[in-house]
């Protein structure tokens, strides 16, 4: 039972990371109708910025704050320079354009930071496990990730549901032309939303950097999972992204944790060992396929879409 709680926490932690990525992706897709394959590159940039700034300032927290600002600025610059010409064009053009950006960013990072990758070291007091309830130890840094992401989710909720900017974002999402006709500067709004999405991706990247290390192409695999999350959650819905991210995180982790033992009961050890990782990685895609068949709009379809 205690072991089960530990694995649940692992699942929630993975879900939190996926939420950060998926929230930005779903904001950009839902409001700007833009398919952004370069979202993973912003995640990578966040991690590289954090590693660089943390090394320069000697402080993890200061490095993280600077990196967050830097990814926001990068996102805004990217939108102005490269994304604007893509608006109003077909999704295929979006995919081609942003895939080109993904390759560009990988090469850019190779030129600037070199091919070997970087390490973002945690302060030594983070290299420990905390006893949360008697008998359950959990890595301190992963608890920090869960707490920080919950805080970000709450801030995002307040921003979108309780502020004037959020109202404009929601207005732009439900009817772009009408919002524009009423005097909302849609161009500026899009730039801000893209910057916000970039900052969320950058935050995910910098939080994950100490666990996964920083390397070229680190955003690509995780981006696929983030797309799965927004499809399950309902495109454009931040609430949907939150719920779906936790579901996907839990399914992936629980599958990895318990499937090998279950399979071992029916198969020989070697077959079970080989089959389990393959099956557990398939499980979330099977869930996505099921959702697409029975609820193609996702669990929480965004209104008016």
């Amino acid at each position, binding site marked *: 039972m205690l*072991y089960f709680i*530990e*694995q649940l926490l*692992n699942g929630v*932690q*993975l879900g939190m990371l996926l939420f950060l990525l998926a929230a930005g992706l779903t904001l950009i897709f839902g409001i700007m109708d833009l398919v952004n394959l370069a979202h993973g590159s912003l995640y990578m940039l966040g991690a590289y910025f954090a590693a660089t700034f943390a090394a320069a300032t000697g402080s993890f927290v200061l490095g993280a704050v600077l990196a967050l600002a830097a990814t926001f600025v990068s996102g805004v610059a990217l939108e102005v320079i490269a994304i604007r010409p893509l608006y109003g064009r077909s999704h295929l053009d979006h995919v081609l354009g942003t895939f080109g950006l993904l390759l560009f960013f990988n090469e850019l990072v190779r030129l600037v930071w070199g*091919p*070997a*990758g*970087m*390490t973002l*070291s*945690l302060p030594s007091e*983070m*290299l*420990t*496990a905390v006893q949360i309830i008697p008998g359950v*130890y959990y*890595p*301190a*840094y*992963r608890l920090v990730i869960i707490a920080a992401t919950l805080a970000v989710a709450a801030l995002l909720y307040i921003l979108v549901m309780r502020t004037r900017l959020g109202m404009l974002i929601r207005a732009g999402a439900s009817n772009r032309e009408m919002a524009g006709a009423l005097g909302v500067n849609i161009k500026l709004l899009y730039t801000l939303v893209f910057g916000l999405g970039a900052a969320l991706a950058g935050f995910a990247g910098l939080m994950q950097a*100490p*666990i*996964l*290390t920083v*390397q*070229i*192409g*680190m955003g690509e*695999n995780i981006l696929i999972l983030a797309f799965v999350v927004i499809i399950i959650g309902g495109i454009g819905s931040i609430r949907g992204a939150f719920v779906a991210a936790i579901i996907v995180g839990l399914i992936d*982790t629980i599958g*990895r*944790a318990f499937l*090998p033992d279950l399979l071992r009961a029916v198969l020989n*050890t*070697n077959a079970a*060992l*080989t089959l*389990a*990782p*393959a099956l*557990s*990685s398939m499980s979330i895609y099977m869930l996505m396929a099921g959702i697409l068949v029975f609820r193609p709009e996702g669990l929480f379809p965004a209104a008016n879409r």
Partner: protein
Amino acid sequence: MIRPLIAGTAALALVASPAMAQQKTVKIGFISTFSGPAAAIGNDMRNSFELGLDHLGRKIGGLPVEVVYEDDEIKPEVGVQKTQKLIESDKVDFIVGYIWSNVILASLKPLVDSKTMTVVTNAGASQLAGELCSPYVFSTSWQNDQTPAAVGLYMNQKGVKTAFLMGPNYAAGKDMLAGVQTTFKGQIVGQELTRWPDQLDFSAELSKARAAKPDAIFVFYPGGAGVQFVTQYAQSGLKGQIPLYTAFTIDDLSLPRLKDLAVGVPGAQEWVNDLPNDANKKFVADFKAKYKTTPSFYGAQTYDAVALIDSAVTAVKGDLSNKEGMRKEMEKADFKSVRGNFRFGNNHIPIQNFYLQDADKTADGGYALHTVSLIVKDDQDKFHDKCPMK
């Protein structure tokens, strides 16, 4: 009458000699990973190969050399395609490289069918040592089981009674987990294969290891995955509780990124940068001078390949069509290896020593791997009986 004849002959010689020289080039195809995170390994191998050629004055057996580098992208299907390209369109005399066991296994058929002289400088799939051994395929590395088997011996010495094993789910991962079990006398309380190469977060598996309460954890995570695993092992707070034993997880490429986290984590290897032989001293010193970094075992094995090929081409006096002659010479392993000399088994896999290595802080504030002790002397892989070559 005579003068024009001489002039004519001279002119003919002038025309003919560049053509002959062109024919007499040793063409080497080199397959490794040059993109993605594992490019760090590929670059180390390429740098070592180039250094090896420099040390021979850019000549193999006295002939000029041309090297064609190809990237396998860690994908078996790309590896086999690049192998076929090197054989069919570049018509290379030798193929060198291969980091990954699944890539060499996929590429083996075209290599063997075309009888291309091949030197595998890392991948050590068990099939390659056993039933799929070939007269034209040599290895300057090891068979996958040998290194973890040496770690298993060391775990016995340390009195480890129960162990939890982890590795990635591909050919080498399976070999490694099997290898440690051939020598480790204690009980295996759990083993996990993780998705490869895309799984980089080991939280679920580390929780499992903690719950299994073993005396020790043994892992095999090559390249960047090793950095990730050792980092997460430290973050999970297990470092003080359950000791870690490794194969191919901490090397000269990952050490600068792991720093303190790697100190005190033992591993086994057939080559360490401080092995006290002259060939190695020259290799390590010149590598550091040229590339401003320390070579890894991947590089050392690849550097040895240059000398091995040179010995073969020298023995047949540059007649590259004499594959039998080259094969016989290579079987003697008559060159100065940076790991100290070794001999080949019947399956063309080295019979060699394995050492215990550890990481330490150096005087200048950096980190370095060093040899602690010899674990096993003249070790031969256990698959050589299955190889039909005698």
